[in-house]
């Protein structure tokens, strides 16, 4: 059997895929955080909870309404994103003129409410969401076994990232968003409905989190606490990459996923902490983050 640095090739490639899939989630979530941060200037602490809500919506939609996976992939982000828009309109907007730290605190409170409520309704132990039939099984690539669903997650997440990039960099709405990120007051003076743009942007960011949640539902146990621990890692990823660029967020997310996967192969004890250690290293060497602009 082929060995890579003293580890069987199949094990190595298996962990690499796992790492890439985790990285795809980091990328999707940090992208959503970056989009929201760009215009609203707040860190959406409820992002993990919204990701969890996406997974739960898929689970409950299937259980009670018979909504299948593919439909959920489209519907859930719209529904959860819509709830996000309501949150922005009725809660976040009221404190938009204040120090942005209040936005962080408000979304933190909301995250506690979402998480606590679902823990009371469904308990902390995770539920299983069935992988759709088409995506079950896997491909034998000769040097490794590639589970179809993981491959699909990778493709879908990257496609979504690309779609987001296209929306922001190549469409008129995206141009508004970029302009608003630079100077929203001037935009408003030019006659653009900035409050609406803010609501839409927040909804979009939340939708991205919910999309990631649906993707994650067949992969991880669906539990109320699935979002919060992931979110802290995503925060570290955001600190490493900086929230300056979309491509930066995607690359950092994937890169951190790979590093985490490889750590699992070579030094499993540190696999939980390696991303935080990378963050410390980046803070020492390049405080603004790898792709960051701010000082």
């Amino acid at each position, binding site marked *: 059997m082929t060995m890579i640095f003293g580890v069987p090739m199949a094990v190595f490639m298996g962990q690499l895929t796992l790492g890439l899939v985790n990285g795809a989630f980091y990328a999707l979530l940090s992208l959503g955080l970056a989009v929201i*941060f760009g215009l609203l*200037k*707040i*860190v959406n602490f409820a992002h993990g909870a919204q990701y969890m809500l996406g997974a739960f919506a898929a689970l409950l939609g299937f259980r009670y309404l018979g909504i299948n996976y593919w439909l959920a992939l489209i519907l859930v982000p719209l529904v959860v994103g819509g709830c996000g828009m309501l949150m922005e309109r009725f*809660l976040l907007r*009221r*404190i938009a003129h*204040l120090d*942005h*730290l*209040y936005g*962080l*605190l*408000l979304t*933190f*409170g*909301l*995250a*506690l*409410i979402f*998480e*606590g*409520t679902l*823990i*009371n309704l469904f308990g902390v132990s995770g539920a299983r969401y069935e992988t759709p039939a088409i995506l079950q099984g896997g491909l034998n690539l000769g040097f490794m076994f590639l589970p179809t669903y993981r491959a699909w997650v990778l493709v879908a997440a990257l496609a979504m990232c690309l779609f987001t990039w296209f929306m922001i960099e190549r469409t008129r709405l995206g141009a508004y968003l970029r302009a608003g990120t630079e100077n929203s007051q001037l935009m408003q003076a030019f006659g653009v409905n900035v409050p609406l743009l803010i609501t839409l942007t927040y909804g979009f960011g939340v939708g991205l989190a919910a999309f990631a949640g649906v993707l994650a539902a067949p992969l991880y146990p669906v539990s109320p606490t699935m979002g*919060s*621990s992931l979110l*802290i*890692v995503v*925060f*570290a990823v*955001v*600190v490493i990459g900086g929230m300056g660029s979309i491509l930066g967020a995607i690359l950092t997310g994937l890169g951190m996923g790979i590093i985490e996967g490889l750590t699992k192969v070579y030094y499993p*004890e540190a696999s*939980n*902490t390696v991303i*935080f*250690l990378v*963050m*410390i290293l980046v*803070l*020492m060497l390049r*405080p603004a983050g790898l792709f960051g602009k701010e000082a």
Partner: protein
Amino acid sequence: MTTTHTTSATQLPSVVQERQRRAKLRRNMFYLVLLAMGLVAPFVAYPVFLMKILCFALFACAFNLLLGYAGLLSFGHAAFLATGGYVTGYLLASYPGLTPELGILAGTLMATLLGVLFGVLSIRRQGIYFAMVTLALAQLMFFVFVQSSFTGGEDGLHGVPRGHLFGVIDLSSNLAMYYFVFAVFVFGFAVIQRTVHSPFGQVLKAIRENEPRAVSLGYNVDAYKLLAFVLSAALAGLAGSTKTVVFQLASLTDAHWHMSGEVILMTLLGGVGTLLGPLMGAGLVVSLQHLLAQSPLGNWVSVILGIIFVVCVLSFRSGIIGELAKMYRKNFK
């Protein structure tokens, strides 16, 4: 004209001085009343409950020093509380000869060292990034505590002996323990009070209000922020160490990010940037948790804390003490 000018010019300072002197006198009287209340309290309420409040109040006061006076929102203060608690708990449990005050001193020192480490790293970023960095560092510590052997992992440390203070006073009596905790709290509070009103505290407030201006005035802003951070970490560690001695246990609950959120809530509810706010907030939150734990709503604690969070941010940003101070200023001045 000139005469009136000179008289008013000479009178004015004395009037201001007189007013300041009276304000100071009122403040001192107020603190004396509080001190007396603290001394009588264990005969009115259950001492263990009071000790819990005092430990969390010290924790919140330490946090408030950073947020309220230096404008730095740390989302990782649980790490210092837990470090203090674990180190003290481990030392007291493994070396029976060690007296509790030495154990607490060691725990506080370790938290201080960790504060230096965290501080050096986190003040490299500002605002929202600062909050994220501290949160991530605290999560790192959480995993360290989970995996280390000295913390007892998921089980935590149990049966930490309270021992004899200075080798003489038996702390197994709740009353003796209470007065020790009360003394620790008064010490911590006095340190914070002194810091806030010192020239150092004034510079911190200047940095909070306008950092670029403080830089342009020639202040080494990073050094000031770091010192405030380390001081806050040390006092949070002191709170954690003391708490471990009181409850004779140290667990992962103290290291979890929920704890970092709770201390923010205590401070916010009582009043950010007020000296007594964190004490008030800690008292309210701990009492609320205590009451809810016995009621049918016991499982909803975190939801209710979340709702209080949202309400505080939306409509009650100065906190209870802050709002009271505003009312006082409006009506009596």
